[in-house]
């Protein structure tokens, strides 16, 4: 069973003559341990698709299932989306979006705290993740005192905190230089394999596609093609 299943999803903004179709008949899936890319230029619909998968935007039609739970089927199914997000999805943002008044460790513990994990347990888990991400020595540093690469690792740690089956990363390398961007992608690949999460990365950077298991290429709101193991299918 795929961790993420998107079937014939359509999203239309506005109505009548002003209606704009942002997504049309999108079908894709991501398996556990798989690193998947949503690739496309600006305006291709990848951000809209990410919002739909993030359970922020309701698709006009189609079906989305996360970890076996049907969230949308031609409309909302009444699932508590915040809880579903908390428990099943980890987010890595374009600009990291760490909470600036918290330390590296606290930023990771926050995700656990929101999920009701006791404080001591959350702190221990945060430290373990920082060690796993090789920045354990920066645990008590405030976000502002971390380098871009370190911030990215903390953001990844936060996404991993609740061991979600699905991790969504929005342009995770856009604020990093090429070298650090490559390292971040290597880390995401490692996470997908070791943590058995489905990692979906939204990117417009064609240079990154080699590292993905599958690449879904979008254009004008439609799925253009799928690249598997860096080979065109």
């Amino acid at each position, binding site marked *: 069973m795929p961790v993420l299943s998107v079937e014939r999803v359509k999203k239309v903004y506005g109505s009548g003559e002003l209606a704009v179709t942002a997504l049309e008949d999108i079908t894709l899936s991501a398996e556990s341990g798989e690193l998947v890319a949503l690739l496309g230029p600006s305006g291709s619909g990848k951000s809209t698709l990410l919002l739909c998968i993030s359970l922020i935007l309701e698709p006009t039609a189609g079906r989305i299932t996360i970890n076996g739970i049907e969230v949308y089927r031609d409309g909302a199914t009444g699932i508590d989306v915040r809880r579903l997000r908390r428990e099943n999805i980890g987010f890595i943002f374009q600009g990291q979006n760490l909470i600036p008044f918290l330390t590296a460790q606290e930023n990771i513990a926050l995700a656990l705290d*929101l999920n009701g994990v006791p404080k001591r347990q959350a702190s221990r888990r945060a430290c373990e993740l920082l060690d796993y991400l090789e920045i354990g020595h920066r645990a008590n540093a405030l976000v502002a005192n971390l380098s871009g690469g370190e911030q990215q690792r903390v953001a990844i740690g936060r996404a991993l905190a609740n061991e979600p089956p699905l991790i969504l990363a929005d342009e995770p390398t856009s604020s990093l230089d090429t070298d650090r961007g490559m390292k971040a992608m290597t880390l995401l690949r490692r996470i997908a394999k070791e943590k058995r999460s489905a990692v979906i990365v939204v990117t417009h950077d064609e240079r990154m596609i080699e590292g993905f298991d599958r690449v879904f290429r979008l254009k004008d709101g439609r799925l253009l093609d799928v690249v598997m193991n860096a080979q065109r299918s």
Partner: protein
Amino acid sequence: MDLAIKDVRHHLGKFAVTIVGVSLLLTIVLIMNGIYQGNISDGLWLIDNTRADLWVVERNRGGPFNEQSRVAEDVYRSVAAVPGVAQSSPFITYNVEREVAGTSQHFTIIGYDVFGGLGGPARIVTGRPITRAHYELVADEKLGLRLAEVVRLGVHDYEVVGLTRGAVDFGGNPLAYLSLHDAQEVLFQQDNRALQASRAAALRRLERAGTTSEEAARLAPLLSAPTDTTNAVLVRLVPGVDRRAVAQHIEEWLYLSAFTPEQQRDLMLKGRLQRMMAILGLFRSLLVVVSIIIIALIVYVLTIEKIKSIATLKLLGATNWVIVRLILEQSLVLTVAAFLLAWASAELVKDSLPRSLLLLPAETLVTFLVIFAGGIVASLMAIWRALRTPPSLALGG
């Protein structure tokens, strides 16, 4: 995880400056509370500490504090003869501005029958009461006089024989007690040149009326203003007597007005103090509203500054309560800290202000509750803004 406190720690300087600013406003609110209560306390001090059962004044006058009342000195004898009256004493009170203890001071002179009459100083902290008919004075410490110091009032010198503490008139000015006749003398006695001018004026009036020079010289002293008037008669009743009945008797048979202490307090609160209390009340309310508006704006700005963090929290699945708590807690931390600082400041400065400042714990508590509720209201705008923030704001650059 207490996000609000962690944010406060991160922006400690900004919060500290804001707390100091808001606390200054709240200090003014508390000081105004103190002045308000101080005015009431001062206004009622003389009434409460005179311990008369009835205040008898000129007919249809709200005297002796709200309105000028003139009563002939010997009227107290007629009052003493009223059934139910145990004791009655003449009483005089007026404000003066004189040079005392090296500075020009505004104070109130109280004249009373020093030989067992009513209306004398309630409690003397140093020295003794007046025991001689003339030239002795009991003053409040606030005048800055020392025992045995000699004060010139009018044409005579008066020796300070006793000191009181907290004896003030309705304006918070200190009291100085004299014997009745000394007080009348200070009030009415003129120097020689004034006497000559007044006598010349009386002679001219008599001569214009057609009297001879000899007759005018004989009659002129009779035209001078009387100096044996008082302002009120203080009455102590026989225990168990109906005060209203005695007052009614005095009003009907002696053609005077008589007030119980409760009526005198009402006259003071509704007359002299009402407008001042209304103005102080208005300013207090305005300052509280301004403080709450400032807190609301500060909390709103602080929320806007972390709106992306709030969007991130929402995207991470934070419940609305986590967001509400973050904002509400900061608003309340700001409000409570500013209030505590204001309270400490008001307590610190209250004794150094020229006016009596009475900080009543109950009123301070009510003010705190109002400000606390204001702090909650102040956070509503920011909470509304935060809850409307879409989690999608966290995505994208």
